[in-house]
């Protein structure tokens, strides 16, 4: 019995952390807010193998599994990596596009603007169409790096089997859960650093229990969500029959925990955090968006209830 990432996944995560610390700074995220596609960052991600992480080695990918996938995405979340990171990783196994970071693929929204379409190169409609983007019109969003856009393109048909589609949907929710917990960890780090140095009443505000206790509670939330993400990843690796149950659990817990963390971190910063000049909002706003993307916590709880048969007999 061993519950956790293996040494290879841990090493991947370390390496990615080091790379993103310089390749993806808050300035990079701010550039994405202005509509920059961050091509250099994506080249760096490509050199590292991130976009093709789930693509078989024979097709130019790393051929890794969902455990490595969540390890990498948690780290991408920590850096606030802009663009369709989760989406590109789950789309590339389905479409014959480059894995070197030149293809940034997002997933067609059911209605309205499609997230990241403003800076993506392609949009995959999982019902079986791939769009190469040329013309697009960006919709304003709270997190501007989300680059929601409507577009007009001639689609190419793509053949996606039912099994592939199911795996695709699970990976989307799971990857987003991992990314959310990375965002939460970043906000926590920013906040711990801040409350240790910010002085009021002659002491660091981090010494006050009124600051400590909500942070401790938020940490409980994220700490108990991460094992659920790992468990769900394992169900995909082993293609277990109750994968949907575990993926929904992971996304519900991660959405709630990351959102809670963003609230507590913003509050702990006081007015200092309530500004676009300070970096916290870059991570908080992505959290708000992703907590609702790929299914809200309530929608996933509903799915969990269905899988467990709760309420079925009444």
């Amino acid at each position, binding site marked *: 019995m061993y519950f956790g990432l293996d040494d290879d996944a841990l090493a991947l995560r370390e390496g990615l952390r080091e790379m993103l610390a310089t390749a993806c700074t808050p300035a990079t995220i701010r550039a994405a807010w202005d509509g920059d596609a961050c091509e250099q960052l994506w080249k760096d991600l490509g050199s590292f193998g991130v976009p093709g992480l789930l693509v078989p080695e024979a097709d130019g990918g790393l051929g890794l599994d969902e455990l490595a996938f969540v390890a990498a995405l948690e780290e991408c979340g920590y850096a606030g990596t802009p663009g369709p990171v989760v989406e590109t990783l789950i789309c590339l196994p389905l479409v014959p596009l480059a894995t070197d970071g030149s293809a940034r693929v997002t997933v067609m929204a059911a209605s309205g603007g499609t997230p990241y379409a403003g800076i993506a190169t392609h949009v995959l409609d999982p019902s079986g169409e791939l769009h190469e983007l040329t013309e697009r019109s960006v919709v304003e969003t709270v997190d501007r790096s989300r680059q929601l856009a409507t577009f007009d393109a001639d689609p190419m048909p793509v053949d996606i089997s039912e099994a592939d589609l199911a795996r695709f949907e699970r990976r989307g929710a799971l990857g987003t859960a991992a990314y959310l917990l990375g965002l939460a960890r970043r906000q926590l780090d920013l906040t711990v650093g801040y409350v240790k140095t910010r002085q009021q009443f002659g002491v660091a505000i*981090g010494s006050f229990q009124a600051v400590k206790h909500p942070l401790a509670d938020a940490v409980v939330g994220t700490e108990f969500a991460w094992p659920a993400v790992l468990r769900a990843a394992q169900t995909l690796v082993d293609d277990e029959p109750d994968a949907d149950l575990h993926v929904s659990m992971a996304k519900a817990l991660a959405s709630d925990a990351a959102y809670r963390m963003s609230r507590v971190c913003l509050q702990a910063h006081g007015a200092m955090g309530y500004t676009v000049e300070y970096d916290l909002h870059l991570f908080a706003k992505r959290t708000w968006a992703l907590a609702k993307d790929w299914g809200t916590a309530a929608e996933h709880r509903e799915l*969990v209830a269905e899988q467990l048969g709760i309420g079925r007999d009444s």
Partner: protein
Amino acid sequence: MDLRETDAEQAFRAEARAWLEENVPHGLPSGDTKEGFALHLEWEKKLFEARWAVVSWPEQYGGRGASVWEWIAFEEEYYAAGGPQRVTQNGIFLLAPTLFEFGTQEQQDTLLPRMASAQDLWCQGWSEPGSGSDLASLKSRADKVDGGWKLNGQKTWTTRGAFCTHLFGLFRSDPESERHSGLTYFLVPLDTPGVTVRGFARLDGDEGFAEVFLDDAFVPDSAVLGGVGKGWSVAMATTGSERGLTLRSPGRYLATVDRLLELAHDRDLDDTDTQRLAQAWMDAEAYRLFTLQQVSNEKAGRGRPGESSLNKLFWSELDIRLHELALDLLGPDAELEGPWSKGFQFALSGPIYAGTNEVQRNIVSERLLGLPRK
């Protein structure tokens, strides 16, 4: 990641399940009353005779030398089978880990078998009327005399103290000392002359609490556990066990959720009920997964300071949420005495005992996050 149980682990689980299905008594009264306690002792002795009382202990002391994975499996099976509360828990789960770590060979050889077989029943003597969360301010004294120590003072909120035979507790052995230094951990038979025990009722009305008065009670030098003046660090080893895994295994909450889903089964559920039930299942499962990760990390040398406080915060709040949901489903019937109303009142003690959750939040923020104490 490897979530498979080995053949040996599977066999262990199957053996436990079969025995428990056959032997678990149902409908025992609360073990926190005099009559109930006696019935629970019969069950404890039966567990011991079949060598299920202390599965993780070495065989020489009545255990099976079970691994921590096997222990977790046993606990899951125990609670899934509807096994009753363990009235021996404060000895077996709190004192024993400390005895294994700090006890002399003689202490281990004498005390552990009697504890496992429920001949000696241990209660915890830490809190005092003026020292709760601020345990280091305790005033009970130990004065050195020829061949041993004279104990004086008062301990309180001692769980099942009125039914137990022995107390483990902290006493100030250096009258000049302050706070964490100069404390010594003592093992005290409650029939020692000078010891008076008075039981009193907890919130739920059962006589589950006691106060223990010590008036020149003599104990020999061999009653010291872990060295004179070392009491604080010895005691902290026990709090780690208490907050973390050994006191509250995941099996307990998984079983509560099963009962909760059963309760919900033939009721009209609205969307909020459904959401809360799904959350309850997820939370219990999350606690299980967290503990698997925690044990794995500790074995790999990646344990983190303050981690057992995360467990304690989670299971104590979870237990309350599970019972609140049950009472909401019961509606007006929630006021009737019964397992859920009883369980609810017990759950309310979770954030208080074993170090209040306020103390745990301090520990998480100071040791895990590195925030300043002052």
